[in-house]
């Protein structure tokens, strides 16, 4: 066995061993490992892509939401404005109606008062006629025809009224 001379047998056995090792390791190691690596790289890339897509989607949704909120605020503002206006008009309406009602009631009260006054006047007239009749009866001693009395008293009363 020389130190610096390659032996034929060693060459043969090394080649045989190495080629066998190469074939076995290719099956049990390199193929599975490289496949796994590729798979994993593919999956990582896919996940990153997915995350990017999700991010864009989220941003879009956020923008949409902001838009929706803006619209809602505008609508709410409009509704408030409208209801304020309508409340104003309702208020005016109510006040107007109340005024009308009050006027009506006032008129009615006036009329009632007038009616009562007229009636009271009539009553007083009648009472006055009766009283005067009774008085004259006592003075004169005899009763005049009731009809005459009435005529006379009415005349005097109308005179009284004229004097007023």
């Amino acid at each position, binding site marked *: *066995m*020389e*130190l*610096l*001379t*390659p*032996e*034929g*047998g*060693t*060459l*043969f*056995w*090394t*080649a045989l*061993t*190495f080629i*066998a*090792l*190469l074939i*076995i*390791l*290719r099956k*049990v*190691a*390199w193929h*599975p*490992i*490289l496949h*796994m*690596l590729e*798979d*994993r790289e593919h*999956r990582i890339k896919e996940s990153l892509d997915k995350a990017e897509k999700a991010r864009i989607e989220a941003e879009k949704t956020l923008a949409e939401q902001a838009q929706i909120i803006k619209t809602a605020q505008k609508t709410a503002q409009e509704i408030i404005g409208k209801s304020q206006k309508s409340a104003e008009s309702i208020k005016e309406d109510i006040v107007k109606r109340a005024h009308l009602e009050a006027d009506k009631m006032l008129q009615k009260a006036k009329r009632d008062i007038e009616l009562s006054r007229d009636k009271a006047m009539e009553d007083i007239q009648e009472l006055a006629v009766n009283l005067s009749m009774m008085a004259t009866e006592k003075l004169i001693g005899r009763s005049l025809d009731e009809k005459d009395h009435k005529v006379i008293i009415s005349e005097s009363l109308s005179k009284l009224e004229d004097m007023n």
Partner: protein
Amino acid sequence: MLYNVAAKAVEQTAAQAGAEAGGGSEFIMHHILAQPVIKLPTIWGIDLTITNHIIMMWIASALLISAFTLAFRKKRQVPHGWGNMLESVVVYLRDDIIIPNLGDEGWKYSTYLFTAFFFILVCNLLGLVPGATSATGDIGVTTTLALMTFFIGQYAGIAKHGLLGYFKNFIPSGLPVFILPIMVPVEVMSLLSRHIALAIRLFANMMGGHISILSIMSIIFIFKSWIVAPFPFFLILFSALLEILIALIQAYVFTILSAVFIGLALEEEH
């Protein structure tokens, strides 16, 4: 009685060691050279005797196969522990040695480079186990590996450029015709010598490490005294640590140079 036997045994061992130390280089050569283990007949001029180096190679192969089989027995998306370490080495080889030098068209030769790296690494490291030797310290083993790199490179060149294009690679362009008779042999020589250097580099590094460790060890026997033992002990420890580093570096160097040589063969002629 017992003491006498013990004393006799020590005496005998010392005498044997002394005799071995007498021929110090023989003692070293005995450990460096391949020793026949199983005698086999010579067929067509090839002595098929199985040496200890071949046994070491088989042990290395068995270790590699079982390590990878155990690590990647279960199909998983992410490997754990041992498999993780092996995978990181494979990723390193793929991304930093094979792809930069060979590219996509040379990817089919990656199997060879992966196997060569791990085979050389385990053979180198096994040489550090007491009682074992490293198969890569045998010129026959490294020659076989270098020949494989050589043949793969030439095959890759012929497969890509065709036979004519392959031979054109030996003719440097842009040179006057009268220089070609000098330049073509130079090109051929450079092709051959870099593969020879590939074999010798690995062999010499591994063998040199063993010779240095064995030489330091024989200091003890040359002085025939255990008083000097601590000195070689620390030197051997240091050398052994250095050997671990060299085992890794040489496996890396062989792999990257093989990748570069195959890559050179694949390159367009300029």
